[in-house]
């Protein structure tokens, strides 16, 4: 190992050391795939992450060497290399890092050979194209087009590529002409290392809606407990009173306690009972007089 190290040119040695330092100095180390991200966008992303996370681009071999030299569980990150990797160092919560990176993604035009990240749909409606070869191009990729008012019009909404399928050259060309940008481009977090564990994107993607639901559920549990156990709080005292009043009314009506506050409920109850029996009797041939109903 030591011998091999000697063979590294000075700048590579420095690079490896810098990577190692970055890893050692940050609790969270992410590995991202930079493949296909235009340089201009990389600049934007770096700017967006400034103060939160540092992107360290390097050759995969050097990153691998740094990980190997450090050893231990952080070296497991190697398994998540994909394409042109870069490391990202942060003091942030790894879940928040994931969210941040998702937020830096932008929509880009599709290049031939790329995989559709979701169904790519071309909506129906007028276009700005004048009649010409474009109509044929549309038809070749299955988009029904007609000429209307001197302009090309797409007759119906079409899904031209399904999620997961390859976007071919012709489709990519048409999409770009239509200004449809189906690709999510940005730093895709392949994995993040934090305190001895490697987290995959599936683990890092949090479902906020599910979380909100749990909050709502917990809140209703607390509400229920407070009311059912009659533990008054500012939020629940009204409901507790309501519960007690309802219980008292129920008992009063059920038992026929003739009190002014509930006499109308009792009348209503008797009336409904009468109606139920009246209808049953009617069904068996007893004529009801009009005033009954």
């Amino acid at each position, binding site marked *: 190992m030591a011998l091999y190290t000697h063979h590294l040119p000075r700048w590579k040695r420095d690079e490896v050391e810098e990577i190692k330092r970055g890893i050692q100095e940050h609790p969270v180390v992410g590995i991202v795939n930079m493949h296909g991200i235009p340089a201009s966008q990389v600049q934007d992303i770096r700017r967006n992450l400034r103060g939160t996370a540092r992107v360290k681009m390097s050759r995969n071999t050097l990153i691998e060497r740094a990980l190997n030299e450090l050893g231990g569980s952080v070296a497991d990150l190697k398994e998540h290399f994909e394409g042109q990797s870069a490391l990202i160092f942060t003091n942030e919560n790894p879940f928040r890092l994931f969210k941040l990176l998702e937020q830096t993604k932008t929509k880009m035009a599709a290049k031939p050979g790329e995989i559709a990240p979701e169904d790519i749909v071309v909506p129906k409606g007028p276009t700005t194209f004048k009649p010409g070869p474009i109509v044929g191009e549309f038809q070749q990729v299955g988009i029904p087009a007609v000429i209307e008012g001197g302009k090309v019009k797409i007759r119906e909404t079409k899904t031209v590529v399904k999620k997961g399928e390859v976007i071919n050259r012709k489709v990519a060309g048409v999409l770009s002409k239509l200004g449809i940008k189906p690709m999510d481009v940005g730093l895709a977090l392949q994995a993040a290392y934090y305190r001895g564990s490697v987290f995959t994107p599936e683990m890092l993607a949090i479902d906020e809606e599910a979380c909100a639901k749990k909050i709502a559920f917990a809140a209703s549990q607390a509400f229920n407990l407070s009311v059912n156990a009659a533990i008054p709080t500012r939020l629940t005292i009204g409901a507790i009173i309501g519960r007690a009043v309802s219980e008292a009314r129920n008992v009063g009506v059920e038992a026929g306690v003739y009190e002014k506050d509930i006499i109308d409920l009792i009348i209503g*109850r008797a009336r409904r009972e009468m109606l*139920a*029996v*009246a209808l*049953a*009797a009617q069904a*068996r*041939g007893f*004529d009801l007089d009009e005033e009954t109903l």
Partner: protein
Amino acid sequence: MEYIYAALLLHNAGKEITEENVTAVLKSAGVEVQDARVKALVAALEDVNIEEAINRAALAPVAAAAPAA
């Protein structure tokens, strides 16, 4: 609906719903009793499970019946 109330009253009092009993209740309330209706009522209620009908009414409404009028 005096006739039905009379029947319900008897039912609740644990009495049988006979023509005689219904007539007696109605008379006690000063109702001019029509024998034919009493007969029809008693006959109709013979097969009715009054308890069940009442309980259903207590929980769910009969309101639905209203439009029939």
